[in-house]
């Protein structure tokens, strides 16, 4: 009896092991005949190529490992901004689709239909090349928001120049920890004594006051660096100083946001529609204010419907960010699975590392969203 149960599983396992063994053997043999070696030693070798845009110190004299990190951070950056912006836009559009106002409603549904059905790569190209063609050359750019310039070479804006940033940063973390414990305390008070604190305003106060103190006693100092026009040749200019955000990042963020927001909007719409009308009426009848109804009754139930498919969209956005390579945004795929792979020829190793990295990012997002879902959703008794 037991044998009968185990046999198929054993055979499947054996089969998988054999297949895997066969592929490894074959790859090993092919690599041998072509004189390719397997190994990760290349990661510590000098990369000798430069990267356009990096969140950490980098230049070509550093290692391939460092270049990997630059690419990874760039991927995380565009994914993070994309997730935040597409969530905000998605909620707005999703709510707008339920609006009784004909114009708002139709505009929102046209938006969803349009941006969801045009292939993403096309949208990325559109925003990149259309923007490039439409934006002025640096010397013709006009000022906006005080001291920023939007040009074909990117957005140049003011950059903060910190003195003793570490101290300020530690103060920020302390503030967050204090806020966390304060909220725990306030919740306990409310449950035990029914006392309600203005939680939001007190938290905000803590968040501002603690870091602010470091300016007075911690030697923290903040000044601004402004972009200034620099002439490179008769007709070619650029900006120096300040902070430059490359047009590739802007176009990619825009395309990812506009595309992903359509799916999130649909999730939001489905979530809100999924909560029964009776719920709202019942809540109102026991004297909750409209904002309390939304916060305490509708949202916890709607979020339960919204979060799981939206998690998928976050994962999609992160994976889609790898289309960056098409428009020269130096993400993980362009820098590591592109340039580094070509320069080292370590295809198997690099593809392996890249896949493992995306898997890890995806798992991390999923885990975070599951945790959030559990926390926010109503506990079913």
């Amino acid at each position, binding site marked *: 009896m037991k044998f009968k149960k185990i*046999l198929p599983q054993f055979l499947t396992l054996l089969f998988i092991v054999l297949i895997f063994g066969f592929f490894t053997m074959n790859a090993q043999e092919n690599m041998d005949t072509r004189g390719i070696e397997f190994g990760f030693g290349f990661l510590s070798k000098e990369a000798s*190529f430069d990267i356009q845009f990096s969140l950490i110190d980098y230049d070509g004299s550093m290692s391939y490992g460092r270049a990997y990190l630059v690419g990874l951070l760039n991927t995380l950056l565009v994914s993070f901004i994309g997730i935040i912006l597409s969530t905000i836009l998605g909620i707005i559009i999703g709510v707008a689709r339920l609006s009784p106002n004909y114009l708002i409603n139709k505009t929102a549904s046209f938006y969803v239909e349009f941006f969801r059905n045009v292939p993403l790569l096309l949208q990325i190209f559109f925003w990149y090349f259309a923007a490039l063609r439409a934006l002025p050359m640096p010397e013709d750019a006009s000022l906006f928001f005080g001291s920023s310039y939007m040009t074909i070479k990117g957005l140049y804006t003011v950059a903060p120049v910190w003195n003793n940033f570490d101290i300020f940063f530690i103060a920020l973390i302390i503030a967050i920890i204090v806020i966390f414990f304060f909220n725990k305390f306030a919740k306990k008070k409310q449950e035990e004594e029914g006392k309600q604190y203005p939680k939001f305003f007190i938290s905000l106060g803590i968040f501002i006051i603690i870091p602010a103190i470091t300016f007075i006693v911690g030697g923290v100092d903040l000044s601004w660096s402004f972009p200034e026009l620099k002439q490179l040749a008769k007709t070619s200019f650029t900006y120096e100083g300040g902070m430059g955000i490359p047009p590739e990042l802007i176009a990619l963020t825009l395309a990812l946001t506009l595309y992903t927001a359509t799916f999130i909007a649909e999730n939001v719409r489905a979530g809100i529609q999924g909560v029964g009308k009776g719920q709202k009426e019942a809540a109102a009848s026991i004297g909750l204010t409209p904002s309390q109804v939304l916060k305490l009754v509708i949202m916890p139930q709607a979020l339960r419907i919204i979060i799981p498919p939206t998690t998928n969209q976050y994962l999609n956005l992160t994976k889609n960010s790898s289309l960056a390579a098409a*428009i020269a945004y130096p993400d993980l795929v362009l820098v590591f699975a592109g340039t580094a792979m070509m320069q080292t020829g370590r295809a198997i190793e690099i593809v392996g590392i890249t896949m493992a990295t995306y898997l890890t990012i995806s798992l991390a997002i999923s885990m975070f969203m599951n945790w959030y879902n559990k926390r926010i959703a109503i506990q079913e008794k």
Partner: protein
Amino acid sequence: MFKYVKQLTSLVAMIAVLFTFTTETMAAKKSKTLKNTQKKGFVRCGVSQGLPGFSNADAAGNWTGVDVDVCRAVAAAVLGDANKVKFTPLSAKERFTALTSGEIDILSRNTTWTLSRDADIGLTFVGVNFYDGQGFMVRKDSGITSTSQFKDGISACTNIGTTTELNMRDFFNSKGISYTPVAFEKADEVVAAYDAGRCDTYTTDKSGLAAQRTKMTNPDDHMVLPETISKEPLGPVVRQGDSVWEDIVRWSLNTMIEAEEYGVTSANADSMKTSDNPQIKRLVGAEGEMGAAFGLDNEWNLRIIKQVGNYGESYKRNIADTGILPDRGPNELWTKGGILYVPPSR
């Protein structure tokens, strides 16, 4: 229990199949690539995604160019027909994996022969069909006429996965100039971005610059600066480990160059069979057994010259007459002041 007998037998069968494949790969030590090519009936050739003069497809999908002609020469030699080639357009990034993974059998795509590519990643370069060097393109109205006018903050558009990316760094570093590299995966996007004004300069092989200039909105608004910052010997590449195939590709290219040296052209090749110069006779298959070592017949080289032409014809047809680089520069025969010099076919 009997239920699983069927599963078990199919499993055994599958394992058996897997093992026969394995032993086959081990046994096929002679030119597997040649055998496969003859079986398939076409040469699998990796080319660029469109570089006029070197490898470029017209609207009807016909490929032309000096890089294309190398593959055509091999097809004429091993299959008897220069048209029996299947072209696979590849970006700079894709090209080596396509070759090592066996998707193509020749890579003939403005690829620079370097030590690490040759020795480290399972490739073998068989020769040089175009001697080149890296240069810079700028807009004429910028007033820049030399790289010595480059200033800190300059942005340079280029392709990823190229020697260009590395040379560029060496160049700007040695001059102490800070620069912004804007590196794309595909050449068309590099051209589009530079053309739109994203970069102050576009850098790649000078041959590439000359070819890509023809794709700009207004080619006359751009110029290539005189400086050459690197050596870029471009040539066909094969997988390491099939020396017969390697030799076939190498000597197909050599045949084209030597034919020019001895004045053998597509028009006069047949009549050259009766030449009194034995070197010429060997080139057109009228003396010696020049194909035997590759397992080919004796007229393999005659077919190359008749169907594809000699190197000079190919250059004229693809690069000179199209106005891309009318001057042959170093890509002239050694007998005429250039550096094209190949070992003799004998």
